[in-house]
């Protein structure tokens, strides 16, 4: 009876399990293939000699980029597992800002490694646990390799920013952009309540203007606005010793929230109304003048005109400069940068609400574009930074902005976690070598999985040398040898085409970038491994 029960249940279960396992194998294979497809697409853009991708968006626009997150995002991936890698890249972008290509490449490599482990008959959850074990060890190795850095060591931070920029389209400008990124982030870094250094990249504003070349990109003290100063009726465009008012009310005829009709019954009434309008506006303008403000920034209004020709005319007469169309979400940044507070009604306009700047000036940039620039701002409040990015065409401009963003993120990662680690794929190969050794201390299937994890990481140096036109096998084996001999910082020197000490070459990156890439990639891979079925639903 026992046999009959157990055998019966087991028999039925087995035959179905076999049927199901064929299906789940297929599903797994399809997931892994799709994910590898995504990884292969970005693989060639890795490293300083990585190539760029031209992406033609559905509406015909063209985009050229080297940024992994951008590439996978625009690829319009349909397969569910592929989509997960896209999300993975985005997560790395928000966490570390850089390494968005590496994270996808590593995830792809881990998945192909698991394919051969699965073929050995190792259960997916066992592989998944093995990977976690390997990850824990890898993070330990990385921590050991890294060196602490202080925010005062500007050189070191600069090197990290340059490393990030070197793999971008704008790499020839890295000596210009890197210091900018470092200065901008360090300027806005502050201590939070618990004494930790924090950076909010919202305090760094990048402004793009077409024209000029990337060489003309500059980090600005103070503030720059892309809105133009109003020049109608001979408005002023240059104000020294500026007192700036940030207005949230409108300089236009009154308008009530309840619908209103002004009823004109005769010709005289019309004259009177026109006169009243003049008086009303003049009254407002005079009160502004009385407050001492000579530069007005006026918030955009959807309900009524922010300014009228008439009010502009009055303001021009009184030599008050006007910049309109300030968006509501810009208000906070502006008020922070200029040390002024927004004023929502004329009654609240008081001298202490004004911000001060030595000079407010509308400048024409090469290429005919204009910006309003505030210099000599006395900031008592939280500091902000503005970077004006220039470029000869929109493609370059956009890519420059993306690269700069990555560099800013790299510096921010350093502020968050103040450790530097060698670049040039030295960490990956070191982890691979250490894991290979570690796997020898383990028994059973875990040992295989840990070993496979380490081997999978070699995809990074392999790809890096491949992209640089070097002979990958030679480089990777050379790297292995050097690391086995204890040279933990040996990495690929792409410029010289051989293996050198990366720290001496000043190729460094923040620890956070690589540790977060490994962690996120492992997490995503573990999620994909656990899937055995795709079910169509509503």
């Amino acid at each position: 009876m026992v046999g009959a029960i157990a055998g019966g249940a087991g028999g039925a279960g087995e035959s179905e399990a076999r049927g199901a396992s064929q299906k789940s194998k297929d599903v797994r294979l399809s997931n892994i293939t799709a994910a590898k497809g995504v990884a292969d697409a970005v693989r060639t853009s890795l490293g300083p000699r990585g190539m760029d991708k031209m992406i033609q968006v559905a509406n015909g626009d063209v985009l050229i980029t080297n940024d992994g997150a951008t590439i996978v995002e625009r690829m319009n991936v349909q397969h569910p597992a592929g989509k997960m890698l896209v999300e993975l890249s985005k997560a790395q972008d928000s966490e570390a800002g850089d390494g968005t290509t590496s994270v996808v490449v590593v995830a792809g490599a881990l998945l192909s490694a698991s394919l051969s482990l699965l073929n050995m008959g190792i259960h997916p959850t066992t592989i998944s646990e093995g990977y976690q074990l390997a990850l824990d060890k890898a993070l330990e190795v990385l921590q050991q390799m890294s060196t602490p850095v202080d925010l005062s060591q500007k050189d070191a931070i600069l090197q990290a920013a340059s490393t990030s920029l070197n793999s971008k389209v704008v790499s020839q400008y890295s000596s210009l952009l890197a210091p900018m990124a470092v200065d901008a982030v360090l300027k806005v870094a502050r201590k939070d309540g618990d004494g930790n250094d924090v950076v909010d990249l919202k305090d760094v504003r990048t402004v793009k203007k077409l024209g000029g070349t990337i060489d003309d990109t500059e980090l600005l003290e103070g503030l720059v606005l892309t809105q133009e100063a109003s020049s109608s009726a001979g408005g002023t465009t240059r104000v020294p010793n500026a007192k700036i008012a940030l207005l949230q009310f409108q300089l236009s005829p009154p308008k009530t929230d309840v619908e209103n009709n002004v009823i004109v019954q005769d010709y005289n009434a019309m004259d009177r109304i026109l006169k009243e309008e003049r008086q009303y506006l003049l009254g407002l303008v005079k009160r502004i003048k009385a407050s001492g403000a000579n530069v007005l920034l006026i918030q955009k209004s959807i309900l009524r005109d922010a300014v009228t020709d008439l009010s502009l005319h009055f303001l021009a007469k009184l030599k008050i400069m006007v910049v309109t169309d300030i968006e509501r979400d810009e208000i906070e940044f502006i008020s922070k940068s200029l040390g002024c507070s927004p004023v929502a009604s004329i009654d609240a306009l008081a001298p202490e609400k004004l911000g001060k700047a030595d000079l407010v000036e509308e400048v024409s940039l090469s290429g005919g574009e204009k910006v309003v620039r505030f210099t000599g701002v006395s900031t008592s409040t939280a500091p902000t930074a503005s970077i004006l990015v220039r470029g000869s065409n929109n493609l370059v401009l956009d890519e420059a902005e993306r690269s700069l963003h990555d560099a800013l993120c790299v510096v921010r990662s350093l502020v968050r976690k103040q450790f530097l680690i060698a670049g040039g794929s030295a960490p990956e190969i070191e982890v691979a070598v250490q894991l290979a050794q570690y796997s020898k201390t383990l028994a059973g299937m875990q040992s295989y999985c840990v070993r496979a994890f380490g081997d999978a990481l070699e995809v990074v140096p392999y790809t890096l040398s491949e992209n640089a036109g070097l002979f990958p096998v030679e480089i990777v084996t050379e790297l292995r040898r050097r690391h086995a001999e204890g040279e933990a910082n040996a990495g690929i020197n792409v410029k010289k085409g051989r293996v050198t000490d990366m720290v001496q070459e000043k190729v460094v990156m923040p620890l956070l970038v690589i540790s977060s890439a490994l962690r996120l990639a492992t997490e995503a891979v573990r999620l994909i491994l656990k899937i055995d079925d795709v079910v169509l639903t509503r």
Partner: protein
Amino acid sequence: MQSGGGAQMAPFGMGVVPSVLSEGAHEEKGETAQMSNFIGAIAVTDLVKTTLGPKGMDKILQSQSGSIMVTNDGATILRSLLIDNPAAKVLIEISKTQDDEIGDGTTSVCCFAGELLREAEKLLLLHLHPQTVVSGYRKAARAALAKLEALAVDHKSDREKFRAELVKLACTTLSSKVLAQSKQQFAELAVDAVLRLEGSTNLDLVQIIKLPGGSMRDSWLEPGFLLQKKLGVGQPKVMKDAKILVANTAMDTDKVKIYGARVRVDSLTRVAEIEKAEQAKMLAKCERIAAHGCNVFVNRQLIYNRPEQFFSSKGIMAIEHADFDGVERLALVTGTSIVSTFDDPGSVELGRCDKIEEIMIGEQTVLRFSGCSAGAACSVVLRGANSQLLDEAERSLHDALCVLSQTAAVESRMVLGAGCAELAMASAVDEAAAQEQGKIALAMDAFARALRALPGIIADNAGLDAAELVGTLKAHHARGEHHMGLDIEKGVVGDVQALGITESFKLKYAMVNSAVEAAEMVIRVDDVIKAAPRKREDPYGRH
């Protein structure tokens, strides 16, 4: 055995069956009906059974719109399926009920019902009457549940021990989910969250915030409340000893809400006056709000520039456009209610919390309310590599919280997991079956087999030899060693007490009860009538 509609609309006569159903309706009778029911139910069971247990797999649910969801949660999978089989729908229904009442065990209940039906199918082939099968199942269920009650233990009296047991319980629940990789951390987190509730089962007090980036281990429990909003410009960034007024009110102007209302004036000065009056009205409203003595004002709707400036000047922190869910929860945790009129400051109880400040998580700035008056409130911040992971983590955590809160507040008894309870129940059923005479004993045997199939599935999913393990366990339990169960990690039979795998008594009890009821319902059916689909008029009149 099908009698369709129109085809047989022949004149009455010998041997011709008149159709009583309307055209398009469909009827299945007797064995055909039973067959199609069993097949449907078993198909659904087979779909979800691979998710069972610590080595269970996940499924991708791909919707027609292309969005994807990765999940291990039986209820979520079943809910999303497109099913056109009445018996399968019964299983989906019980899984949903289990989800609503217990929150976990949704796959188990479906699997058990499926196994019961699989056994019933065999019994029917042996010419047992469905009613005999049903009464056998009922008797067996009674014996099984009695055993379950006898095995259940209650640790509620010992606080320390109870907490440890709850952590174990949470670990068991989480071990089959995506959070398994750091289950200890999440188990502690869930238990802390539930113990803060102090006997309440209101899970609204536990807020789950998902932020992509970081890794799952960076998730943490925040005592207090988090709101994903920003503060107004120029307002205090930190507020200590906050008195909070939560409102849902328009902060532009109190418009006359009569259609077509308008003012007619004959000069612009008058317009300016009316504008002034409107503004004054708004300010008066702000004054009334300030008169409540609050120093934090949270509004469901937008706060425009002018009121914002007013609040800034008064040193009041104003938070606008908080989402509905956020406002309700905030009101709940700070012990206040949402107000819309401000005429009677005395009657409004202000919400209290010790400190409000801006904190940064990843790239996001959120507001932290700490030391809220409802001490029960807390927020769980989940971090993870992608949104699928976060969504699944939220579902898993929710399951764990449901089970824990039920255990902590309602039914504190626990039983051993890892197949222990099932096998103990099966052995009790075996004993009871031995006392029975007649065919009914066969049905009870079948019930015991179905119970044993559950640990079998778990072992199968882990790639272990299910028949061998279950056979060994059966012998242990027949000797009365009711603490033996599956050790999936090692792939052997082990002492579950030592492994620390426990499950909620209520969960198991509900699982057996509702699975038996569902199976009974399906077995008793001998006729399926599908109503004629509602005719759709062809809008163009074509055929």
